[in-house]
């Protein structure tokens, strides 16, 4: 899996691609989000459009990152959910937790 970090104004977008699974994938997401927080970033978007596989640990890591960012006074939002990620979030009621966007422009403007 790969994570690229870019900024649009004061919003940091993490473009995640590949698999977010137990082990390497979940750790990479966690480390990237924590690195942003360490640098004082408060507005984070996880772009998941190129994530081709996620397991329950990956979903757990999204939740964990969300709570970590929220607890530090920031906001974490999700962009470009695949159909499968959307289904996994929906059946565990997590779509009620996350703010989800299909458009990067709308996601950036939402902060």
């Amino acid at each position, binding site marked *: 899996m790969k994570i690229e970090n870019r900024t649009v104004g004061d919003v940091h977008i993490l473009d995640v691609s590949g698999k977010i699974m*137990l*082990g390497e994938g979940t750790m990479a997401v966690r480390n990237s989000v924590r690195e942003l927080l360490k640098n004082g970033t408060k507005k984070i978007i996880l772009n998941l459009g190129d994530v081709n596989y996620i*397991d*329950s*640990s990956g*979903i*757990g*890591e999204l*939740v*964990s990152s*969300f*709570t970590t960012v929220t607890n530090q006074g920031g906001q974490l939002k999700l962009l470009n959910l695949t159909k*499968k990620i959307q289904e*996994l979030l929906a*059946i*565990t*009621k*997590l779509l*009620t*937790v996350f703010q989800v966007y299909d458009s990067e422009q709308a996601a950036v403007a939402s902060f």
Partner: protein
Amino acid sequence: MKTTANRIEVSIGSALEYLDLVQTLTDCVTTFMGFDDDTAHWIGMSVRETVTNAIQHGNKLDQTKKVEIRFDVASDQLEISVKDQGSGFQVDNLPNPLDPENLLKPSGRGIFYIRSFMDEVEFRPLSRGGMEVHMVKKVGSN
């Protein structure tokens, strides 16, 4: 309906490195049976979650303990059995991930997903010790 079952069995050590092997085998079985891509994906995820639990929570990553995975292929359904050598658990005691107090917990969704995507899921304590998770996916169900 009369069916002819074919059995595929594999036994792995309790290491997460084997998960990709099990995933590949599952994908081969579901492709062979003609499941559509989405259904095959959810079966693969269910098996991966089950084997992950068996390795991590059942056998506690003890390399001397095995996880046995069995696929029974029939024309109308796929039966999957995953056995570990752990100390077992009470499935009824697992917290419900949909309860408001559990919604933001980072773990505890794996079995919920397995139950969502498979048609039948049973948790059976084994007389020798350990647990068997028995799952069924019918051909043609979503």
